[in-house]
């Protein structure tokens, strides 16, 4: 079978073309594929559409906001397009206000389910979320069993950049604690899934089949985070 293990982050993202849609997981700074995002930043792909819970933070760490600030992102699809506090003016917020980047605002649970159905061949789903709000305007409504729902559509992507705790050479993945968040569903939804992994890539068979969080059938490329990579302040190999 094709070798999925890449030596460097740069090689793993080298072919991402301008105009791609890229999924960027992570939540509250945990499970963010910072090494792959740094590589995409170096690689320079432009006109990207990025799908992510938020559009970057004020901290110095590499995240999707790094790509936004570098002008690589055409559009964000995310659950936050304004800061939670007016003082938190991220590069995205500044650029969005100036019209330099576009955005689609999606409730977080709808975002997650739209990603999941993109992976799973479902054409649309009805959610009660956002009914009665400005965000539901123009969306198709339907009453079923006495409750009103809006129709939401799949959100697929060309690439997913994923951060995992452990991976085997086939690409079976495990995540640790709240690192999981958007990582599994994005890994499953994208055409090409690229994973940065915190531990050494394991031999096939080293992960218990009952404890696989994402099947290797969804994973295309795997890169071990190097010791001098971005470790979120923890020691390598934790």
């Amino acid at each position, binding site marked *: 079978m094709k070798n999925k293990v890449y030596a460097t982050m740069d090689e793993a993202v080298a072919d991402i073309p301008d105009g791609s849609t890229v999924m960027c997981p992570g*939540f509250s700074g945990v499970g963010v594929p910072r090494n792959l995002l740094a590589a995409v930043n170096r690689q320079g792909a432009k006109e990207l559409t990025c799908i992510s819970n938020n559009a970057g933070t004020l901290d110095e760490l590499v995240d999707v906001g790094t790509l936004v600030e570098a002008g690589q992102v055409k559009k964000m699809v995310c659950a936050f397009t304004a800061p939670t506090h007016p003082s938190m003016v991220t590069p995205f917020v500044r650029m969005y206000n100036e019209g330099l980047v576009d955005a689609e605002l999606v409730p977080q*649970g709808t975002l*997650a*389910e739209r990603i999941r159905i993109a992976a799973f061949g479902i054409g649309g789903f009805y959610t009660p*979320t956002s009914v009665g709000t400005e965000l539901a305007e123009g969306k198709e409504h339907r009453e079923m069993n006495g409750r009103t729902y809006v129709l939401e559509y799949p959100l697929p992507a060309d690439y997913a950049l994923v951060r995992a705790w452990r991976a085997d050479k086939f690409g079976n993945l495990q995540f640790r604690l709240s690192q*999981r968040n958007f990582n599994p569903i994005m890994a499953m939804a994208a055409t090409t899934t690229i994973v940065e992994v915190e531990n050494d890539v394991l031999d096939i068979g080293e992960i218990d089949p009952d404890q696989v969080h994402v099947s290797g059938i969804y994973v295309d490329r795997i890169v071990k985070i190097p010791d001098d990579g971005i470790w979120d302040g923890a020691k390598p190999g934790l």
Partner: protein
Amino acid sequence: MTAEKTKLTRQQMCDRLAMEFQDGWIVNLGVGMPTLCSNYVDDSREIINQSENGVVGYGPLAGEGEEDRHLVNAGGQHVTPLAGMGIVHHADSFGIIRGGMIDVTVMGAYEVAENGDFANWRIPTRKGGGIGGAMDLAAGAKRVFIALEHTTREGEPRLLKRCTLPITAPGVVKMVVTDLGLFAITPAGFELLENAPGWNPEEIQELTEARINISPNLKDFRFRG
């Protein structure tokens, strides 16, 4: 005897909402003020904290040096693992939320209306909005509790007949705590259940746009301990 006129602190407000939590409840606390609810401890009951990032049953905030870099709550605070904790991915986490498993969600808000609407995601004078999981929680949780200051910094009321800002969900708020008291929202609108020390209902009404009904069992505000 008249109590000295005192506004409630944020911790006192959140303590009061937390006193409503029942044994075994699954609770989702919004980022910011609502997280203070977890500081209220009642050993006679167990609360299951759920956060949007798929952690079910996390424990108190991690102390200095105790942080696990892989474990945070929805606000990004490092929390401690609690025995019995379980992890799901984001779609399954919002399955829990949308599926009606959350007994109560506590959120902050800019405004609450007597019809149970509330607004906490967008100020129309600013571009964009910050929804996060608020709309899913508001639509999915069994109960929505709101904690907010009774008035804006400029003294404008936040308890309104109708929200003026874009709402997060219609008709879902069941209970509201402000720095002036505890309120239920009933089909008849706001009902003052408990007033802050030294504040009489008329004084609270003056700082409120909506009409406030006074509970026949109006009580003094209940504090921790």
